[in-house]
């Protein structure tokens, strides 16, 4: 049993992957909590697909350089965020069908671009490859976490107010859009930073599933953020152990683990869980 748990981390590349995933586990879930509260869960899907064409273009232009792919992903992600924001304003919040259209288009374009270059492995880009977590990827993940947390701390109060009551924010401070944009920049950075280890399709899993699970454990925003980080760290460790022992890609393994914790939270958490709804006074 102990071997099952510890053996994976005797290997250098697994320890690297763990360090990177833990960095992402600290930075991404707090953003996920805000995405859930702002009812923008769909936006994370759009962004994870939206970064794909950028990553593909980066890879085509500069080979398998993490920095080139990362830069391409960030540029594409920001462009998608801006267009989605514009659509949201134009449609008065009923943008979900346009968002669905955008992410399908982006996914198809990304897959087409990657497939056109036979040197690129589509599975690795979509679902991650822990073997590919080199120094550059690790620095990227740690660097994004280092930037994300202080910036989130600085914009915390305006972001809370803008999430709770955007109308009030617009009426009093008038800079709601700025905080919203900064927040989206952080989301894009986190999605892109996770793609080497987890893949573009799975890196959002570590952002959203812990955040959705945390709703069932705490009444306070800070409490939900803490729980989400804990769930993400557990998922990173547990998922990597599963990935090594069962020989499945790290991205799906970590997301499956996080999904399991979410289902557990949904069933048994102290707040709004199915158990609570069945026995309200327990």
């Amino acid at each position: 049993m102990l071997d099952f748990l510890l053996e994976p981390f005797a290997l250098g590349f697994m320890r690297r992957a763990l360090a990177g995933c833990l960095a992402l586990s600290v930075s991404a879930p707090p953003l996920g909590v805000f995405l859930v509260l702002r009812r923008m869960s769909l936006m994370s899907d759009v962004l994870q697909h939206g970064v794909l064409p950028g990553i593909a273009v980066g890879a085509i232009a500069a080979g398998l350089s993490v920095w080139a792919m990362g830069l391409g992903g960030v540029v594409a992600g920001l462009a998608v965020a801006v267009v989605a924001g514009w659509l949201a304003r134009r449609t008065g919040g009923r943008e979900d069908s346009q968002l669905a259209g955008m992410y399908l288009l982006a996914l198809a374009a990304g897959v087409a671009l990657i497939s056109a270059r036979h040197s690129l492995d589509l599975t690795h880009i979509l679902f991650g490859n822990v073997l590919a977590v080199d120094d550059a990827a690790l620095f990227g993940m740690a660097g994004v976490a280092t930037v994300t947390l202080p910036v989130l701390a600085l914009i915390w109060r305006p972001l809370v107010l803008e999430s709770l009551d955007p109308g009030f924010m617009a009426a009093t401070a008038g800079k709601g859009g700025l905080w919203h944009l900064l927040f989206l920049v952080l989301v894009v950075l986190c999605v892109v930073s996770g793609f080497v280890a987890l893949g573009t399709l799975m890196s959002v899993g570590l952002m959203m599933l812990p955040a959705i699970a945390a709703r069932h454990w705490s009444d306070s925003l800070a409490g939900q953020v803490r729980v989400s980080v804990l769930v993400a760290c557990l998922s990173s460790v547990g998922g990597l152990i599963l990935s090594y022992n069962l020989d499945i890609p790290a991205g799906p393994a970590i997301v499956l683990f996080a999904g399991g914790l979410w289902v557990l939270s949904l069933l048994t958490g102290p707040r709004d869980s199915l158990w609570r709804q069945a026995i309200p006074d327990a």
Partner: protein
Amino acid sequence: MLPVGRRGLGTVITLDNITLRHGNRLVLTGLSGRFESGSQTALIGANGSGKTTLLRAIAGLHPLAGGRIDWDGFHRRDIALLAQGSHLDRSFPITCRDVVALAATRLGPFRSIGKDKLAATRAALERVDLGEMENRPIQALSAGQFQRVLFARTIVQDARLILLDEPFTAVDAATTQVLLSVIQDWHAQGRTVIAVLHDMELVREHFPHTLLLSGQTGHWNAMPDPGLQAA
């Protein structure tokens, strides 16, 4: 009671031949008049007559299709708009105290909420009889209690012009009395209050001035035809 604003209270709002559209629909046209400093005015009229649109225009949040509004030289910060609370996400994990405190100060990356602002927050919650609920999450509140929280938030904004959009909708009689007494405080302090209201009895009793919107224009100090109101 909160300290009054630095530049003296109240303000004159002058509407000069304004026209308002909501989307493609013409809502109001050729409306002129003044809200005097320290006045307390009820904005009345049928649904769709443009009350909320006019309130938002006075707050500077809805563009004018024509004419102009003179705010007597003061800033957006001096205006508090209490929109209809139903738009707010009541499942948001936040306490009553934090909802109020977030409005007590201008927000920015390097601004904190000081002790004086927290004291003002506590005083405002006590003023609406929610002193003991400050640490409760808002989702545990009834509709009436939640409206009291929004009033406490409006109190800490310490604004010279206070705009209220249907403040008594979905609240019980006891809460209405508490909220009315807060409005009377504001009036006594010389702040200008404009409220969208539906309950004509309440308007007659408590609001010395009215602006009735009907037929795409406004009628100052008029009341709706009782026959029409019943329909």
